[in-house]
């Protein structure tokens, strides 16, 4: 009897050790983010679209295929991500676009750029020289007045947008990183386990009812 008790106690210690080990391992790992999901983030900068693709643990998708298509499914262009998971291209057409990244082994991420993010100046190559020519032909402010400054509304807007793009791009990048889910939180994991125990309860209940009616 005493022997039994001792054995039982011994086993209990073993089981709790295992449990502790597993929980400790999980705690250590909780700091990492986990990989499964692939996300692609894209932003417009002038006439270029930049994309960044990552696994959900923050690893860049290297050499993943990027497929850019219109919302109706017409493929516009294709490319590969570089070593940082980035891929940039000039806007091929002034339409809303869907960007898909294929990271192999069934991993796939998607991002949609709505039409209003693609700025009106995007379609035509908006070089300052071009704009100047245009404004010469049909502008209210004569170029001879301020030839050096080029301060007509169109040029000013172009310069402003360019400067804003440049200044904002780190912010946009930061937003992209914030948007990136940081892997499952501990309450998600516990919640999932709770669901499973709930299912066990339901299964046990129905099994019990079946047994009862059989008797």
């Amino acid at each position, binding site marked *: 009897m005493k022997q039994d008790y001792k054995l039982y106690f011994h086993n209990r210690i073993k089981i709790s050790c295992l449990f502790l080990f597993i929980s400790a391992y999980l705690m250590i790992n909780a700091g990492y983010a*986990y990989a499964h999901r692939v996300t692609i983030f894209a932003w417009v900068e002038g006439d270029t679209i930049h994309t960044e693709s990552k696994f959900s643990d923050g*690893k860049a998708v290297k050499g993943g295929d990027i497929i850019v298509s219109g919302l109706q499914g017409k493929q516009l262009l294709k490319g590969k991500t570089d070593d940082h998971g980035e891929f940039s291209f000039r806007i091929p057409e002034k339409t809303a676009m869907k960007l898909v990244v294929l990271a192999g082994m069934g991993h796939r991420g998607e991002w949609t750029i709505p039409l209003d993010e693609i700025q009106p100046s995007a379609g035509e190559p908006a070089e300052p020289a071009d704009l100047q020519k245009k404004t010469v032909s049909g502008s209210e402010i004569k170029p001879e007045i301020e030839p050096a400054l080029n301060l007509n509304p169109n040029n000013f807007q172009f310069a402003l947008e360019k400067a804003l793009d440049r200044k904002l791009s780190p912010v946009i990048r930061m937003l992209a990183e914030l948007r990136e889910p940081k892997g499952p939180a501990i309450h998600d*994991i516990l919640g*999932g386990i709770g669901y*499973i125990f709930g299912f066990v309860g339901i*299964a046990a209940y129905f*099994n019990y009812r079946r047994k009862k009616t059989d008797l």
Partner: protein
Amino acid sequence: MHISEGVLSGPVLFTGAAITAAGTAIGLKRLDYDKIARAGIISSVFFVASLIHVPIGPSSVHLILNGIAGLLLGWGAFPALLVALFLQSVIFQFGGITTLGINTVIMAAPAVICYYLFSSMLQKKPYITMPAAFAAGFLSVLLSAVLVGAALMFTEEGFFNVAALVVAAHIPVMIIEGIITAFCIAFLKQVQPEILAKSLA
């Protein structure tokens, strides 16, 4: 090894769902009162194991533990893994709802195969049990990788390319899973031998 939504073609998804439905039906039928709790535990272990990321190798891989699921549950692996995969797709957005069927087949079919191959060896002496458990852990991941290749061959560039890639990426996981499975089975044999005895049902 969770296949994302929108990668596979309709017929593949449909076949996966059909096999999962059949497997789950068989599994539920065989789950008796004692096994329900066990299935629940395995299901939660599987649910959490996919979060344990193995930082070796070229791609992002994680523990799967479908070998243990198969050894302890047999056909019961289908409902157990289906539940776990469903919750993973809803809570963590791993995989997806439409690919739930095919993902369950990828995980649970190797589990059932390992159950038929190895579960009878678990009653034997430790020098048979440990290698058998290791083989179960190793083989189940290998078969899962091959199944991923098979599922993707209709969309990507050909079965052997994809399968080789997936298998190569999972070699570290196979070894780790083999070791974990061997130790878990040895541990269970010592602590709760009746779990292994009853799994022959």
